[in-house]
């Protein structure tokens, strides 16, 4: 990264042991997430996205800030995102072209057109997408981190759950089991105010998500989810404590889902002033940029440079895959099992 705006002696120290390069990497992931989603929205309107599009507008900060706290690479820490954690997936090394292929159900997508959006994984690189049944990834991540513990590997798992998903039985069974086993697992609870159209008051009778999990005997804190560095710092601390054998940690991040459940949803149930206030005063990227610039850790030219590079990357990624084919129909029959390798083609197809 160009260092034309190296910190001056007047700059406050960068928090949480981050370097200036890392601060700019975080900015790049934030911008990449938003730009990629804007491109997906355009493709959606052109009916090139198959099915629904799930935006994370307004939540990019907590996704990127939390994932950035992990040790990333082959056989390192392990992350399981929700559909709105696109930013976390990008931080873990997923390429935008893979996301574009997923949304357009291309043959060359990570799931070969079998699953949608960020529902995919790479066990070597340490990420595993959710299934649509919310809560299920908590027990699964308990099993993954149980393996780390059994093998004595210094690895940590990070898993996300929403304010709605925390109402599922699987969530409670999973976090309790993980707590009892003192597994190296960090759970990020996203208070984004909306579970489809259901507000928190209809989802639980406490004020804070952190209050819901204190009964499991694990540390639970609440962090401003749109303060990227605060999320990073809290996650880093929890991750290192978990790595050190201190068991499960829960971090509630407060944020706001600024789009509908998916693009079809016009959010008529959301108070307009509330939405506008979050957009105007509490956008995670705006706040992060202001902090970088006000602190003298970066200047407008640095950020503009990144914005331009991200724009080019998204253009090139789109061009690379837009014309790719959908999967061959009969590829649908393979790999239900390891053995047999394919389900039989049914007789009426050959009449």
């Amino acid at each position, binding site marked *: 990264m160009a260092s034309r705006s190296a910190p001056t002696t007047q700059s406050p120290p960068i928090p949480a042991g981050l370097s200036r390069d890392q601060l700019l990497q975080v900015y790049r992931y934030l911008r990449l997430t938003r730009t990629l989603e804007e491109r997906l929205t355009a493709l959606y309107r052109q009916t090139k996205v198959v099915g629904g599009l799930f935006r994370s507008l307004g939540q990019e900060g907590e996704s990127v800030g939390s994932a950035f706290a992990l040790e990333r690479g082959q056989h390192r820490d392990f992350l399981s995102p929700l559909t709105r954690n696109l930013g976390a997936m990008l931080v873990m090394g997923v390429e935008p072209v893979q996301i574009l292929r997923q949304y357009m159900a291309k043959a060359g997508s*990570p*799931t070969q057109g*079998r*699953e949608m959006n960020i*529902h*995919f*994984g790479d*066990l070597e690189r340490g990420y*595993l*997408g959710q*299934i*649509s*049944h919310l809560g*299920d990834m*908590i*027990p*699964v*991540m*308990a*099993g*993954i*981190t*149980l*393996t780390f513990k*059994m093998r004595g590997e210094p690895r940590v798992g990070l898993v996300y759950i929403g304010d709605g998903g925390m109402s599922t*039985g*699987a969530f409670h*069974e*999973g976090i*309790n*089991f993980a707590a*009892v*086993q003192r597994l190296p697992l960090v759970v990020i609870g996203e208070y984004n105010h909306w579970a489809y159209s259901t507000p928190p008051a209809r989802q639980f009778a406490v004020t804070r998500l952190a209050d819901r999990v204190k009964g499991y005997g694990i540390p639970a804190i609440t962090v401003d989810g749109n303060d990227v560095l605060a999320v990073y710092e809290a996650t880093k601390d929890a991750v290192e404590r978990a790595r050190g054998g201190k068991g499960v940690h829960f971090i509630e991040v407060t944020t706001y889902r600024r789009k509908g459940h998916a693009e079809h949803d016009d959010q008529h149930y959301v108070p307009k002033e509330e939405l506008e206030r979050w957009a105007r005063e509490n956008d995670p990227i705006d706040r992060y940029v202001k902090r970088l610039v006000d602190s003298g850790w970066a200047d407008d030219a640095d950020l503009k440079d990144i914005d331009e590079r991200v724009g080019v990357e998204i253009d090139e990624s789109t061009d690379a895959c837009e014309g790719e084919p959908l999967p061959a129909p009969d590829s649908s029959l393979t*790999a*239900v*099992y*390891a*053995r*047999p390798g394919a*389900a039989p083609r049914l007789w009426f197809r050959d009449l």
Partner: protein
Amino acid sequence: MADVTYLEALRQGLWEEMERDDRVFILGEDVGIYGGAFKVTEGFVKRFGEARVIDTPISEAAIVGAAAGAAHMGMRPVAEMQFIDFISCAYDMLTNYVATARYRAGLPTPLVVRGPCGGYVRGGPFHSQNVEAAFFHTPGLKIVYPATARDAKGLIKASIRDDDPVIYLEHKWLYRRIKEQLPEGEEVVTPIGEARLAREGGDLSIISYGATLWKSLEAAEQLARDDGLAVEVLDLRTLLPLDDAAIMRTVKHTNKVLIVHEDTRTGGLAGEIAARINEQAFEWLDGPIMRVTAHDVPLPYAPTLEDFVLPQTEDIVKAARWLAAY
């Protein structure tokens, strides 16, 4: 050679796989120091330690979900359902998460979920269930259901070694009732997907599995003695995938088929087996494909009620006699 019970054979198979492969571990309720509600894992925690024999909270979804996560990472978990009736609490995890994992995202998920099932033991509605039909409809799962001690051992070993998720159903009525000589030191592995001809005969075929396999054999013996009928009995052993070749072989040999299972009738496996025979061996049939099953009610507790609801040897005798005369 020692006489080995069905339960001991299962225990031996588990033990041998734990010794053979340190990726294998057990998790479930009361499987540790207590050794499991039926003592299948008695002595395991002493030999293999708490890290490989994990007592869990009463959380079937967490048990199966954690097994799935560990399986992704290269382990070979064996999850115990204390009674198979409680597997319904993990239905989502098994059918949505586990069964689809390889297909939707290329995730290897080699795990075994096992547990005691079946009636004839006065267990009432929630300790007597047969759950095969609930999972038979789910592509991605395999289901095995041993009837003999040899297969109890051979199928648990094959299930643990299989690269796909397997539901292993063990019948609690058979646990200590069935004994067989199993040579010590012999490697017993029953291939998944292969039925076994339990009795040869040319007049009529009975297709069954689990506890009713023994009731079918008893009926066949009685029919040979009293009616001079030569009844062939096929033990399916694996329910998913079904061994179509073995089914069609016996159908083409005897031309009359009685399907017997302990599970309830509507939506039970007998319907699928009958449909396959209809599609693949219609012209070989000399009579209607008939079913002997439980009545379509929850399984009641009182002996008089349970005995009436479940298929008994005498029911199989009468049904076979009726079909033979058709």
